């Protein structure tokens, strides 16, 4: 069923004894555990167990998704929104292997001068256009009875949005994500007026794998899931090992331990496979994806000449299909999390 079959094996080589897979990740509180898994050799252990090799590659976020779509890596971490509008919309059939967390305040709308969402009419808002931030803005305005055309969006690069906002008092509103929010909030005159915590679960952070690669190599899914939940277990214990692990995560994110802990507070981690499984199989995911795909369609993210938000099919664990049944490009697969929950890995 996967049209992108041959090409996606480009990076998996069988030249050595074991198959090798490449996984890209980028810095984000909910994805730091991947780096810890790598550094602590937990990932290597699980890969060995299933007779494969996994290389973890650290990248900038958008380039990492591009590399995934280009076929340079077999798996990549991304949000449900990018999973839909980048690989799925480009015909790279993908499977959400692990639902690691959802943003519960990690994305937020911050304003100066005590402005509320309603007061933003006619004002400039700094954000990365067509990103999750844009989605947050759209939802925030919607909930306050405003339209997108009521504000002026200034596309601002994520790498410089924080200093840009902080150093220019004339900019009144900004939407971005952590750790940038933390930094901006340190400014005395800035308030948070809307956050992803107001729309919990809509922005999910996923481990996305090429569907056909996963199908041909379930051991990749097994190894990744096994490693992930071993790290989750360490993070949940709240003992010395937890502290050490968090310190390593913080280090590779380039922040202090305390800062990282603060970020985790606004990240709704699913520490146990069970909780992740429950959430993945709930109706909430379908509802969230419906919001997201409509946003994507109305902003041209499904292709400038897409005709309907139903154009791309999304299949859920219970077999339910949203959108075009003949063009399923995104699968939510709970089977690996289920195996983890049942200790079958």
């Amino acid at each position, binding site marked *: 069923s996967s*049209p*992108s079959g041959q*090409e996606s094996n480009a990076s998996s080589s069988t030249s050595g004894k074991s198959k090798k897979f490449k996984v890209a990740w980028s810095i984000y509180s909910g994805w730091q555990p991947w780096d810890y898994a790598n550094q602590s050799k937990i990932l290597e252990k699980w890969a060995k167990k299933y007779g494969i090799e996994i290389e973890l590659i650290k990248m900038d976020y958008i380039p990492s998704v591009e590399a995934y779509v280009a076929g340079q890596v077999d798996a990549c971490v991304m949000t449900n929104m990018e999973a839909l509008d980048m690989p799925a919309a480009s015909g*790279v059939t993908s499977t959400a292997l692990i639902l690691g967390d959802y943003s519960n305040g990690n994305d937020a709308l911050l304003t100066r001068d005590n402005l509320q969402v309603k007061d933003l009419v006619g004002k400039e808002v700094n954000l990365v256009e067509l990103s999750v931030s844009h989605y947050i803005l759209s939802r925030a305005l919607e909930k306050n009875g405003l339209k997108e055309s009521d504000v*002026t969006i*200034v596309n601002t690069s994520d790498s410089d949005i924080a200093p*840009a906002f902080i150093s220019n008092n004339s900019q009144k509103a900004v939407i971005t994500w952590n750790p940038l929010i933390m930094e901006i909030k340190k400014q005395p005159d800035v308030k948070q007026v809307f956050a992803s915590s107001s729309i919990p679960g809509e922005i999910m952070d996923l481990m996305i794998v090429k569907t056909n690669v996963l199908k041909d190599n379930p051991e990749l899914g097994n190894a990744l899931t096994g490693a992930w939940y071993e790290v989750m277990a360490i993070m949940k214990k709240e003992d010395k090992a937890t502290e050490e692990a968090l310190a390593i995560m913080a280090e590779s994110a380039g922040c202090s331990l305390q800062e990282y802990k603060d970020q985790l507070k606004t990240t709704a981690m699913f520490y146990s496979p069970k909780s992740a499984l429950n959430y993945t199989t709930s109706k909430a995911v379908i509802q969230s994806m419906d919001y997201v795909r409509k946003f994507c369609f109305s902003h*041209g*993210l*499904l292709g400038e000449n897409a005709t309907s938000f139903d154009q791309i099919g999304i299949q859920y664990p219970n077999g339910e299909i949203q959108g075009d049944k003949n063009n399923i490009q995104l699968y939510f697969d709970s089977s690996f999390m289920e195996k983890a929950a049942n200790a079958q890995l």
Partner: protein
Amino acid sequence: MLSVTKRSSWTDTLLSIFLFVLIIILYQYFAHQRHLLNPHDKLVPTFAQMLDAFTRSTFEPDRNGVYRLLDDTLASGQRVLISMVFVFGGVLMGAYMGLFPVMDKLFYKFFLFFDKIPALAILPILFIFFGLGEVSKVALIVIGVVPTIILDTYLRAKAFPQEQVIKAITMSASKSQIIFKIILPKIFPMALDSIRLNFKAIVLFLISGEALAATAGLGYRIFVVRRYMAMDIIISYVIWIGLLSYLIDAGICLWIKKQYRWYNK
């Protein structure tokens, strides 16, 4: 260079376009192969798709009713034009530094160091001084390119034949006459040449600046549509940028050739 035979313009043209055609054919073949595998592939659009994207952005108003390509080109063009004022200021500065030892001592080392600072890495500092508006975009271009232009002109002014300067002095030229009547007229086509060769850097900084904070511009569009992998738009924009740069380059070349016939002889 060694050829003394009369040139046959027919084979010349053929040779000139050969590589372009080759690349286009290879690309199209490659794109076609990818599309056979994945008809939804967005990463390597075919020429038909690119043409379509180009036509859409040129002739059809988008969701907000603007003709994107025109809008973006005008926005970017304006930024480049404004920065040109500073570029030509840099030419003047370079000539002064080349002629006056005090200015040489005062500025040369400084610009040499300043020129080495990767401006893109210290954007936050630029924001503090120039805000987020148009000023900061022009400032980025200026900081990125003008030191190079200054140093280049400086070197040319330094290499200016001493004898001609001396001769001008014996004909009662004042220092500013030496700059404006002797040195500048002669190094001006060289300066045009070096602006021409630095146009690439100008475009680079323009695009980077527009990627940071903007509501329109060629660079802005490229970075925004990247969010949904619209490589058809990106590539058609990139070719458009290349084409514009190429035309500007050719225009300057032609201008130099017509206006400064003595140059390069």
